[in-house]
């Protein structure tokens, strides 16, 4: 019924690198698409019932069992006929609790600071695969005070999930951290209220017992006041203990260097106030009963009965009640961003990651046409959520001043989940100390071998990989941080062929690696020096080195490609590209002489789009923006609309200017300032559909206008391809010493040939790009205007 955890983490391309001296350097080589050996990524027939990947939040309700809470994007948009209930059942029905405490020794309840667990599940029947991140939130009214939740990234592509596991794991951990932080805050508030109720009740009870006269009004509530008082006092102790535990949450986040204390704009104040409130209110000094009744918050203490307290038949809190509004909002934002960033199929994401990875090595030229901006939408874009906004640890950690008042009471709170599925009761617990999850992973025994084969490279004891349901496979799990010994992680999403010995590498390899979401992963250093150093010497060491090499690169790559940059590359980016490409295509169709305008831009000659209608001018400026090499700040090169006369200094920075003809209504046809600087300018007259600029007679940029492409996005990518060929040539030109400073006849001949091979116009483009590269590398601000004395031609439609 339950398959063994038969799979694997990452499929990896262990291609052998032929010792070819002409081959690209390793860091520039492009790995094959991992599934290239199989059918094309587009030919797969999916039987899934949902339209696109989505994120699902489910909870294990103690009343109704697993149920979906929300999806991102909305259910109606993504899920189609996919049965969320069923799927929730599957992903929640595996055991997720990986942490428990050592034996409790007092009567007080012990909060479990349960670490999240991460698994990859597959439902082969539905064709759905999911990365599932389990977490627990606290709820005073819930059984054991915990509410199990899980966040799942559901996709029809297994490979996509495996490939992005570390990214998902990172990002979901942040979301989880955020939710839990908000939850702790609400939980503390709830405890505080409850404590006040209890204290108040206790006082009333004491008074009544002392006066020994029943007012009868409470007779129903408290049949036996003495027993009631006892239980109230016990409850007070328990709640104090809980409050202490939750407020003194000694987070591992503190040791986590990645944890960035975030100061949200609106939240911290209220948060601090809340904490202050807690701090001050939870010190009920005996004999100062009056204090208890001091109005400290809006909460009015109520009388309680322990009989009522422990009833669990109330309606459970929903997520909004469990988690502070601000944090919930941030978490959802983050989830939306994850969803956005992972849109597209694996081949697209893979291609993007490779591109980003390769771009890392092209630092000397990539700045030139990096991320053409969308002038219209740039301002609207939300600031990227780089790190999750979490309150400063000190705020959450601040110990109540009444710390001493609390006794340390530790007690196991077993959590028992009973799910009836397919008529078959399924029980899983994690409350037993002897449960397999406590076993420290045998980190030293990691079979990391240089001669890895089809077997798993590293197989961790995987006792936690329990799954339920016929069609559910646990594809990979993660152990929690605390229960393990020294955390050892091997995570590999190799983006390039690792350096394994050739003999052992053939075909497609599957490597199973254990994932461990510990602080190392978060910091991005998967192999801290001390841990690597502790590994055995010999062939293992070699492999380890290789691994560390590749994982390091992976991490850096991940942090780049899946980090903030991905924000731009997501669907929004695709749309942006499509729009940019479409605009450019429009331009090409509208102006038959577009090539010459593009030549002006690529050779650094300022192009003025002259017109009387702002919208039209801006439109063409936008259309031309993709051809502009970057000088310094990208936006500075473009001035979408101006009515001010151009100054000579403007020409140094502005390379594309929308100019208001109506600012100079008296000027005959062309404003005076444009006429004055006409030798530095190309003028595109939108109203008269004419262009005055040097004519282009070269060949290199012709593909930009001669393509038959009709799709915006395709054209955008086509443009990027053509331009990158230009940049390559410019790079060569920049670094060919002999071309600039020929020392021998041979070299000057070569320089001559290089120039002869290219048309003067093309040479001008390359020289301009080369100049930009030079300025970039010498870190000189482009403060000069280079120009040439060439005749302009007037083109008319």
């Amino acid at each position, binding site marked *: 019924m339950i398959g063994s955890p038969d799979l694997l983490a990452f499929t990896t391309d262990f291609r052998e690198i032929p010792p070819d001296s002409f081959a690209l350097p390793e860091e520039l080589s492009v790995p094959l698409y991992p599934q290239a050996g199989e059918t094309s990524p587009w030919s797969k027939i999916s039987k899934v019932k949902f339209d696109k990947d989505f994120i699902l939040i489910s909870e294990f309700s103690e009343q109704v069992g697993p149920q979906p809470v929300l999806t991102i994007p909305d259910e109606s948009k993504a899920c189609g006929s996919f049965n969320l209930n069923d799927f929730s059942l599957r992903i929640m029905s595996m055991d997720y609790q990986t942490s428990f405490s050592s034996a409790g020794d007092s009567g007080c309840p012990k909060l479990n600071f349960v670490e999240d667990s991460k698994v990859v599940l597959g439902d082969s029947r539905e064709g759905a695969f999911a990365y599932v991140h389990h977490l627990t939130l606290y709820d005073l009214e819930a059984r054991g005070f915990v509410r199990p939740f899980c966040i799942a990234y559901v996709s029809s592509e297994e490979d996509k999930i495996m490939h992005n596991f570390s990214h998902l794991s990172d990002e979901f951990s942040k979301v989880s951290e955020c939710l839990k932080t908000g939850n702790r805050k609400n939980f503390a508030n709830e405890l505080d209220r409850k404590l006040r109720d209890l204290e108040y009740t206790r006082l009333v009870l004491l008074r009544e017992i002392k006066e020994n006269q029943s007012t009868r009004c409470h007779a129903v509530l408290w049949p036996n006041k003495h027993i009631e008082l006892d239980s109230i006092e016990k409850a007070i102790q328990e709640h104090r203990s809980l409050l202490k535990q939750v407020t003194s949450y000694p987070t591992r986040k503190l040791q986590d260097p990645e944890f960035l204390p975030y100061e949200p704009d609106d939240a911290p104040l209220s948060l601090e106030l809340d904490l202050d409130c807690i701090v001050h209110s939870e010190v009920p000094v005996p004999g100062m009963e009056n204090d208890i009744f001091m109005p400290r918050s809006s909460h009015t203490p109520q009388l309680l009965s322990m009989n009522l307290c422990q009833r669990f038949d109330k309606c459970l809190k929903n997520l909004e009640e469990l988690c502070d509004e601000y944090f919930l909002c941030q978490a959802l934002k983050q989830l939306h961003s994850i969803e956005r960033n992972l849109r597209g199929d694996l081949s697209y994401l893979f291609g993007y990651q490779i591109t980003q990875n390769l771009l890392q090595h092209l*630092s*000397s030229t990539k700045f030139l046409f990096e991320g053409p901006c969308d002038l219209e939408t740039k301002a609207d874009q939300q600031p990227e959520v780089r790190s999750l906004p979490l309150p400063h640890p000190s705020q959450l950690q601040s110990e109540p001043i009444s710390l001493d008042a609390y006794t340390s009471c530790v007690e196991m709170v077993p959590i028992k989940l009973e799910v009836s599925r397919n008529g078959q009761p399924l029980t899983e617990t994690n409350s037993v100390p002897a449960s397999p999850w406590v076993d420290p992973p045998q980190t030293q025994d990691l079979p990391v071998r240089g001669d890895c084969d089809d077997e798993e490279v590293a197989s961790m004891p995987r006792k936690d990989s329990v799954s339920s349901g016929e069609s559910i496979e646990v594809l990979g799990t993660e152990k929690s941080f605390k229960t393990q010994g020294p955390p050892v992680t091997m995570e590999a999403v190799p983006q390039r062929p690792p350096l394994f010995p050739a003999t052992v590498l053939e075909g497609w390899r599957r490597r199973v690696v254990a994932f461990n979401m510990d602080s190392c992963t978060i910091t991005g250093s998967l192999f801290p020096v001390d841990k690597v150093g502790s590994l055995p010497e010999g062939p293992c060491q070699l492999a380890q080195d290789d691994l560390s090499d590749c994982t390091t690169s992976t991490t850096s790559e991940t942090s780049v490609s899946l980090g903030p940059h991905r924000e731009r590359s997501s669907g929004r980016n695709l749309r942006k590209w499509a729009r940019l490409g479409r605009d450019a295509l429009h331009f090409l169709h509208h102006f038959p002489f577009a090539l010459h305008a593009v030549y002006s831009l690529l050779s650094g000659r300022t192009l003025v789009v002259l017109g009387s209608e702002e919208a039209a001018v801006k439109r063409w400026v936008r259309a031309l923006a993709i051809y502009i090499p970057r000088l310094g700040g990208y936006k500075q090169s473009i001035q979408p609309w101006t009515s001010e006369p151009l*100054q*000579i*200094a403007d020409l*140094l920075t502005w390379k594309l200017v929308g100019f208001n003809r109506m600012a100079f209504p008296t000027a005959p046809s062309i404003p005076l*300032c444009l006429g*004055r*600087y*006409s*030798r530095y300018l190309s003028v595109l007259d939108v109203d008269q559909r004419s262009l005055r600029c040097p004519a282009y007679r070269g060949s290199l940029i012709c593909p930009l206008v001669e393509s038959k492409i009709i799709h915006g996005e395709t054209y955008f990518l086509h443009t990027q391809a053509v331009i990158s060929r230009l940049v390559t040539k410019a790079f060569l030109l*920049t670094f060919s*010493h002999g071309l*600039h*400073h020929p020392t021998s006849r041979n070299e000057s001949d070569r320089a001559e040939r290089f120039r002869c091979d290219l048309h003067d116009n093309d040479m001008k483009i390359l*020289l301009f790009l080369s*100049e930009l590269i*030079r*300025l970039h*590398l*010498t870190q*000189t601000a482009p*403060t*000069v*205007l*280079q*120009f*040439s*004395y*060439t*005749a*302009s031609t007037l083109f008319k439609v």
Partner: protein
Amino acid sequence: MLRWIMGGRGSQGTIEKSAALCIGEEQPKNCFTELQVLKGHFDIVRFLVQIDDFRFASAGDDGMVLVWNVETGERLVELRGHTQQITAMTTYTFIKGERPHTALITASSDRTLSLWDPDSGNRLQTVSDLHSSVKCLLVLDHLDVWLSGGNELCVWNRDFQLKCKTVHHRDAGTLTAVWLCMLVVCKESNVSWVVDLVIFKLNLSEAEMSILAIHHLADHQDTIRSLININNELFASGSHIGELILWDTVNWTIQAYEHILWEEPAGDGQSEVRIGQQKQSEMSIQHMYSDGELITAAVGSGLYVYNAVMKSIVAYRKVAHDSDILHTELLDNGRVMSCSEDGSIRIWELQDLPLAAEPASTGFFGMFGTFGRSGKQAGAPTKKLLEVPGLRSLELIGDLIGHSGAVQMFVSFGVKGLVTCSADHLLIVWKDGKRESQLRSLALFQKLEQSGGL
């Protein structure tokens, strides 16, 4: 193009003008293909002074003096202290500790004189409470004194001590204009200088320096606008109405007299109208420059090149700019450069005329008067220019456009570039783009070598 100018037919008058001004965008001989805009001044920049082979100072109506690096365009030092516009600026090189130091002397309308160290930006010396503001400065390096000209002529030593001064007995009104032109002519031990054709003698033999007016030359019929030293034998003066006189340094006799008249032939009716429209300044010799043999003169908006040795005209162009030329120089490569109120700088090349296959109509050449007043140059009062052997033409080979106000003056650093200053508060450094590109390339390779790769 030349034919149009020389054609002299009235119908071509307008064509001639546009032909002279429009060179088009193709300028293969113009090597200034890179420009750098230097911002820093807040008012008209009037003066540029070269300090050494890479530094120069600029000054103008905002009272600030800025020192720049011509290679990088970096502003090195700001010299602040004058409260009003700068009226004169010059460099002053002196030996201090066996090393030559170059300092800057500036004069301002606030009636102060200051000595600056362009390395540190410190004001080394200052003189205030002058009776009048100084209009011109002149350093006599070999005597280690310098002179300031205002309503009076003062002689100062290195320590800013007044050695002697003249009290001019003429009225101050005319003097103001006169001081603009001051020239030192040195001949053996006789040190004297000329101001508005007043020759002064600086007597050094006595214990106290003294300065005396010893001679007056009153041959100009109008205000003298410019005065230059050509060589040891000659100096030249130019007046507001286009008189150019070459003087002998020793005996102050006239060696040559040219009266430049930018006029159309009198017989042409259309030209008469144009003459009527001509401003007086069209013939004014605003600026002159000499390399010891050739003189270039800015005559109104025209250019005039004269050979002082041969006493003959070399080339001329009546309309070289759209408005008055403010500064002109002969470059090392034999080219002539001029800048004008029209905001442009133009580069001219002296070219041989095609052999006079078509005798141009007498045109306005006839209106050039070339005659000498001295005995040596006694000849026909009017000579047709075409008859002058070796007459060449000034061909426009390039223009530099960038300023939006009058270009006040320029300083050439040879291959390193050219600096221009303008009424639009800007300085522009014009450079050879190809050379600069190579230098940057070299810098990059050096950097790569140092850092061992990318």
